[in-house]
Structures are given as C-alpha cells and as structure tokens.
C-alpha cells in the first residue's frame, strides 16, 4: 500500500514537472524562432553602410562614389528620394525593370536609428517626470482613495492597444497642427511609457523597507525629504530597469508612429517634421515589392533589437557603478 502511494506520488510529481517544462518550452519556441529568424535573415542585410547610410532606391547602378554630386532633396518632402530614377543609358525596358527588381539592397537605416533614438528619447523625457512622480504618489500615499483610482487607470492604460494611443494623438495633435511630427510620435509613446514607469516606480518604492521611512521620520524629516534622499535612491536600480523597459516598449512600437510620425527617408533634425524610425522602416520594407528591401526589413528589426539590448547593458553598467551596492 505504502509503495503504491509512494510510486503514485513520484509519478504525479514527474508528470506535473513534465507538463510545466512542456508549457515553458511552448512559451520559449516563438521567442527563439523570432530571435533566430531576425539573426539569420537580418544579418544578411548587415554591412557597414547599413549603419552609416540612409535610404537608397533600388538600382543596379554602381554605389555612388565620393566624387558623385550630392543630390539636393527638398527638405520639406521626406520621401523626395523615393523615386527610382531611370539609370543613364537604360530604356526602361522590361529587362531593366527585372534587373532593378533583383538588385542587391543598397543604402542603410542610419536615419531610422537616429529617428528611433530621438522619438523614444523625447517620449521618455515626457514620461519620466510624470511616471516617477505618479509612482511616488501611489507608493507613499497609497491609502488615499485617489491613489486607488489612479492605480486602476494605470493598469487599464498599460493593457490598452498601442494604436489607441496613436489615434488619440493623431486626433489631438496631428489633426490640430495639420502636421505629422516626431514630437507627436513621442507623445503617443509617452502615453504607453507612463503606466510602465509609474507602476515599476510604485512597486520598487514599496520594496524599500518601512523601517527606512521610520528612521527618517524619527529624525524629523518631512515626507518629501525622506522620499528623495532615502527611499528613491534605495529603489533606483529597480526604477532604472522599469525605465529601460519603457524605453524598449516605446522604441519597438509601430502602430502609433504610423499615425503620428509618418516616416522619412532622410535624416531630419526638426522634431516638428516627419521623421524616420526603425519600426516604420521595418514595416515599410516588409511591404516593399523589392526582395532586397524585404531583407533590409529583417536588418532593421535586427538593429532595433540590438539597440534596445545595448541600451539595457549600458544603463545596467552605469547604475551598478553609482551606488548599486545595496545591503
């Protein structure tokens, strides 16, 4: 009897463990598939010029050399260089079209890299103060009824589809100003970042032991003073992680940007004009009829992933040096 029970218990134990492992495997498969695809196909598009050059229309003509005159594009038309110029000496025959169609990918995504950094960076500038102060409010004044309402709204907001943020800014900003712009995109991304920053800040502040607050209170420190000198520094590494998460979320969003930033083929510094962004390039290159550009879509996705990874590593190193020596 005892042996039977023992065997059964062991069997159930192994069965449950197996099921858990299976579920974990199922969850990991898409992740590995995505990373694998992006790495294998995307790396085919990677070359030095992919990082240093902007959009070049598909062509069989040799790469423009240094002596070649710079084509002056109309700065107000972000897609001025989209037109496929007929190459010198060609007649526009079917053969030429086929040749262009099969042309190797040219140009790079530098404009997208800079654009993504700009748009997500400005978005973070909007989201950081609001998110951190809201997080402080939710954690340090958690018993107030308003805090409960805000917390609930935050959860709803973080679960809402990103296109909603895009449409909102499209109506509120883009239609009002009659202008697609990088700043509008940043606002849409900020809407998505704020709940992440708020909730992480709140959770991280809650992890700071109550005895720290008591110690400061016992020394006659007002709440705001102890929050900024004791509680916030102790929670900083965790908050930074949340901020990075928010940045990664923002940098990877496509839908809100389509409605607000529009996209661009050139490097622009004017944040009140349309701008390029890596997810937008990925989206547009995926739709492109040119196989070369389809490959570049994977390349852009690859660069985006690496960009977020790099930012994460850099910030981790930075925060570890400046007082991560906790406990």
């Amino acid at each position, binding site marked *: 009897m005892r042996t039977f029970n023992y065997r059964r218990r062991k069997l159930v134990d192994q069965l449950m463990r197996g099921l858990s492992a299976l579920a974990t495997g199922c969850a990991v498969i898409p992740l590995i598939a995505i990373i694998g695809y992006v790495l294998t196909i995307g790396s085919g598009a990677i070359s030095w010029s992919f990082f240093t050059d902007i959009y070049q229309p598909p062509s069989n003509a040799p790469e423009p050399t240094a002596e070649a005159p710079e084509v002056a594009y109309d700065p107000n038309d972000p897609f001025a260089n989209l037109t496929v110029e007929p190459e010198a000496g060609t007649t526009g025959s079917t053969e030429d079209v086929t040749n262009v169609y099969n042309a190797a990918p040219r140009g790079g995504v530098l404009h997208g890299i800079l654009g993504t950094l700009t748009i997500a960076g400005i978005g973070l500038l909007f989201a950081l103060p609001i998110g951190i102060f809201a997080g402080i409010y939710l954690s340090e004044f958690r018993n107030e009824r308003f805090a409960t309402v805000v917390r609930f709204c935050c959860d709803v907001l973080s679960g809402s589809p990103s296109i909603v943020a895009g449409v909102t800014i499209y109506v509120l900003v883009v239609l009002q100003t009659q202008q697609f712009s990088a700043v509008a995109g940043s606002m849409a991304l900020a809407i998505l970042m704020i709940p992440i920053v708020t909730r992480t800040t709140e959770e991280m502040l809650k992890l700071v032991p109550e*005895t*720290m607050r*008591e110690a400061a209170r*016992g*020394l*006659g*420190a*007002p709440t705001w003073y102890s929050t900024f*000198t004791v509680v916030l520094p102790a929670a900083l590494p965790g908050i930074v992680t949340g901020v990075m998460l928010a940045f990664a979320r923002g940098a990877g969003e496509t839908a809100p940007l389509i409605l607000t930033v529009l996209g661009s083929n050139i490097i622009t510094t004017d944040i009140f004009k349309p701008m390029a962004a890596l997810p937008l390039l990925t989206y547009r290159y995926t739709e492109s009829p040119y196989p070369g550009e389809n490959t570049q879509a994977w390349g852009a996705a690859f660069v985006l992933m690496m960009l977020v990874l790099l930012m994460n590593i850099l910030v981790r190193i930075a925060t570890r040096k400046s007082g991560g*020596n906790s406990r």
Partner: protein
Amino acid sequence: MERAMTLTRGIGFGELVGQRVKTGQLAAVDQNKIELRNFGFHYGAFQAIRNVSMSMPAHRVTAIIGPSGCGKSTLLRSINRMHDATEGARAEGELRLDGINVYDPSVDSVLLRRRVGMVFQRPNPFQLSIFENVAYGLRVLGIRNRKTLAERVEQSLRRAALWDEVKDRLHSSFGTALSGGQQQRLCIARAIATNPEVILMDEPCSALDPIASLKIEDLIYDLREQFTIIIVTHNMQQAARVSDITAFMLMNREKRYGELIESGPTDELFTKPSDKRTEDYISGQFG
C-alpha cells in the same frame, strides 16, 4: 500654548557635556520631562493602551518593561507621534512634553520629532555612507556648512563610541556594511547628532549579541547626562542595569488593552514591587 510654538529648538552642543553624574548624585526630585495623564491609544476600533498615567523625569533613563503585546512600543512611539501616518491611529488623554500636550493640534509632528529622537529595534541605517548617515538629521535641519557637519558628525560618533572603529572609512563605507552592533551605535549617533532632548529606544538590543548589547547599555548610561532616555525592553536584567525609573505594563486579560501596572524608581520596583503582578513577572512566575 506659546511654548508649543517653540518646538524649534536651537541646536548646539549643550553645557551638560563632561560632568558625569551617578544615580546617587542626581537631585532627588527632578523636573519631569514627560508626563502622561489618562493616556490611551487606539488603532481604529482596537484600543492598544488605556489609562496610563506616569511621569518620566529629565536626564534619567526610564525603562518600560512587560510581556509582548502589552503596548510598550505603542506607548513609546506615541511620545513622538510616530503613529501619525498609521490609518485610524488616535490618542486620548494627555501626553505632555515640557508641559505641552504633544497631541494638541497646534503641535507640528515634524518639529516634535526633531526634539524627540528615536532608535529602533532593528538597526536601520540608510544606504548612504557612514558620514551621511550621521549627517542626515543635520541636513534635515538645513545645516550645509561642511566644517560644522564634519565637527558634529565626529562628536556624535565619539559619543556613540563608534568613532575609533569607523574614522578611516567615514565616506568610503556604507552604513549598511557595518556589523549589527556597529549599525545600532551608528543609529544612536544619527539620533543624537541633532541634539534632541529625548531619545526613544525601542528594544535597541534585541537584534544584537550580548557583547554588542553591553556596549549599547554602557552608552545609554553615559548618554543620560545629556538626554532624557526612554527605553522599551524585554530584558528585565537590562532594565535593572540601565534604568533609573521602571514602568511595568501588562495586557488586561478581559479587555485586551495594555495598561500600566506600576512605575517607580528601578531599585524599588525590582526589590519591593507594590503589585503582585509585577512581582510575578520580575520573578519569572508569569504565565
């Protein structure tokens, strides 16, 4: 009422430094620093302590003893209104500090806590350097002068008998990196740096080993020359060793609130207690 407004006290190390006073030499009747009259405390519907009346003399160590759950800590923490942030916490009766009822609406709790410092059960240094830990209260008071800060930090660490152990790593070492006993002395240094009048200690040795505890006890004995000290302790020997006045509290079995059984000079309370329950408790016959 005017005195309630003077809860901002000038800082500066007092004249009292230096002369060591033995219990016998202390004046027979001192001015009472803290007086409680029918003091009670509620957490929402729950009454934690009820009807406590006693006085705590200035420049003496008053020990509050009693079994767990008798309201010792609640009584201690109500002296500097640490419960203000707790929802539903409410005091009744009077708790007077130098004649001012600290629960009077005109009393600012932040200013009160600058006069009544606190040391907690578990050492709770900030995740800052040793220097910044001690300087924290001074910075709260708006002291920015580097020289003043350095002087006050050294003085406080010396008085807390920690200076020699940490003087070489004031800025390089985190307060949290010290040993438990050192951390607690750091917390005491932090509490005395702002020169409060009263220091509340909530079982300051319960997380420490016997040797570290003895160091803290010596320190408490020395510090009463300059401060009025109220200490909550589980340890009756400790109360007998460090305190001049002892108060014994017990939970009322029927009503579930804590009440004061008796208070008086430590020698008397431990040798000839006037209440049978006190005698049972200190002789270890308490069930």
